[in-house]
C-alpha cells in the first residue's frame, strides 16, 4: 500500500518547532477535552483526599487519565504504593503496543528526540499522529507538540477541578464524556483502508469486544484487539 514512502521514511524524518506547532494546532480540540477530563479528575482527587499539589503532581508526572481515575477508585490512606503501580501498569500496557507502532517513525532519531515523543504519547495524539503520518507528516515533534498542549490542558483542568470542587455541575450534561469517542472516530475515518481491506478492523473489533467481556478492567481489550487486528493485517497479501 505504502511501499514507496515506507522506504524513504528514514531519510526524511525531522524534528522541528514547526512540526511541534502543527501537532499543537491539530490537537487543540484534544487539549480542550483534556481540560474537561482534568476537571473530572481534579474533583475526584479532591473527594479522594488528595491535596491540590498532590493532584497536580499526579497529573503532571503520570499524565495518563484512565490510570489516574482508577487509582482514585482504589486509593487508600496511606496509599498502597505497589498495588497502585501494578494497576497503572496494567491499564497503560496499551502504550507498549502504540510505542511499537511508532518505531519505524522514531527509529533513526537521536534518543533524546525519540524519547521526548514517546514521553508525550497519549492514545489520542498517537492516533492523530498515525493518521497524519499516512497523509505525509514526517516530523516527530508533531507528537511532542500535540502531547504537550494536551498535558497543559490536563494539568490546568486538574487544578481547576480540585479548586472548584463540586461547584461545577455534571460534565456529562455538556456531552464531555463523548469527546474522546468522537475524536477517535475521526482519526479512524482518516485511517479507513477501504471495504475490501477491512478484515483487520473486523478482527480487532471482535477480539476487543470478547476480551472486554472476559477481562473487564484495565485496558487488555485494547492490547488484544490491536494485536489481533495487526496480525490479520500482517498476514494479508499486499496488492
Amino acid at each position, binding site marked *: 500500500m505504502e511501499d514507496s514512502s515506507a522506504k524513504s521514511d528514514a531519510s526524511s524524518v525531522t524534528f522541528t518547532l514547526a512540526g511541534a506547532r502543527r501537532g499543537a494546532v491539530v490537537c*487543540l480540540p484534544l487539549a480542550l477535552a483534556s481540560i474537561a477530563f482534568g476537571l473530572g479528575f481534579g474533583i475526584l482527587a479532591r473527594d479522594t483526599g488528595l491535596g491540590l499539589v498532590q493532584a497536580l*503532581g499526579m497529573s503532571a*508526572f*503520570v*499524565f495518563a487519565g484512565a490510570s489516574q481515575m482508577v*487509582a482514585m477508585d482504589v486509593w487508600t490512606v496511606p*496509599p498502597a*504504593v*505497589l498495588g*497502585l*503501580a501494578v494497576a*497503572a501498569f496494567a491499564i*497503560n500496557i*496499551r*502504550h*507498549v503496543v*502504540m*510505542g*511499537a*507502532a*511508532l*518505531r*519505524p517513525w522514531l527509529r533513526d532519531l537521536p534518543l533524546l528526540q*525519540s524519547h521526548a515523543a*514517546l*514521553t508525550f504519547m497519549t492514545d489520542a495524539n498517537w*492516533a492523530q499522529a*498515525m493518521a497524519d503520518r499516512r497523509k505525509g507528516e514526517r516530523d516527530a515533534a508533531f507528537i511532542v507538540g500535540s502531547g504537550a498542549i494536551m498535558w497543559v490542558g490536563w494539568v490546568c483542568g486538574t487544578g481547576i477541578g480540585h479548586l472548584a470542587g463540586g461547584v461545577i455541575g455534571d460534565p456529562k*450534561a*455538556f*456531552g464531555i464524556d*463523548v*469527546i474522546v*469517542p468522537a*475524536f*477517535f*472516530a*475521526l*482519526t*479512524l*475515518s482518516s*485511517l479507513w483502508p477501504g471495504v475490501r481491506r477491512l478484515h*483487520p*478492523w473486523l478482527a*480487532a*473489533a471482535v477480539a*476487543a469486544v470478547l476480551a*472486554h467481556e472476559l477481562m473487564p478492567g484495565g485496558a487488555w*481489550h*485494547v492490547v*488484544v484487539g*490491536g*494485536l489481533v*487486528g*495487526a496480525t*490479520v*493485517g*500482517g*498476514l*494479508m497479501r499486499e496488492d
Partner: protein
Amino acid sequence: MGEEALVWSAILAMAFVTWLTRVGGFWLMRLVPEGGFIRRALDHLPGALVVAILSPIALEGGWAPTVCIVAAVLIGRAGASALVAVFGSVAVVALIRLVV
C-alpha cells in the same frame, strides 16, 4: 514513611511504570526484525488499535457514544475541520440529552 511521603512514592511509582509503558514498545521492537510480516502488521496496527478502543464503547456505552461517533464522522466527511466535527458531534449529544 509518613503519609505525605507515601503519597508521593505512589505518584512517582505510577509515573515511572507509566513512562516505561510509553518507551517500552519502542525498545521491544528492537528485538524484532522489521520487514515483511512485521512491517505490514505495524501498518495495520493504528487502525486496529483505535477500533479496539472504540468497539466496546460503541457496543456497551449506550446510545450517546454511538450517536457521537456517527455524527463526528458525518460532519468530518462533509469537509469540516476536526475541531468543528468533534465539538459539533458533542453538541448533538448534549442537545439530545437536553431534549430527552
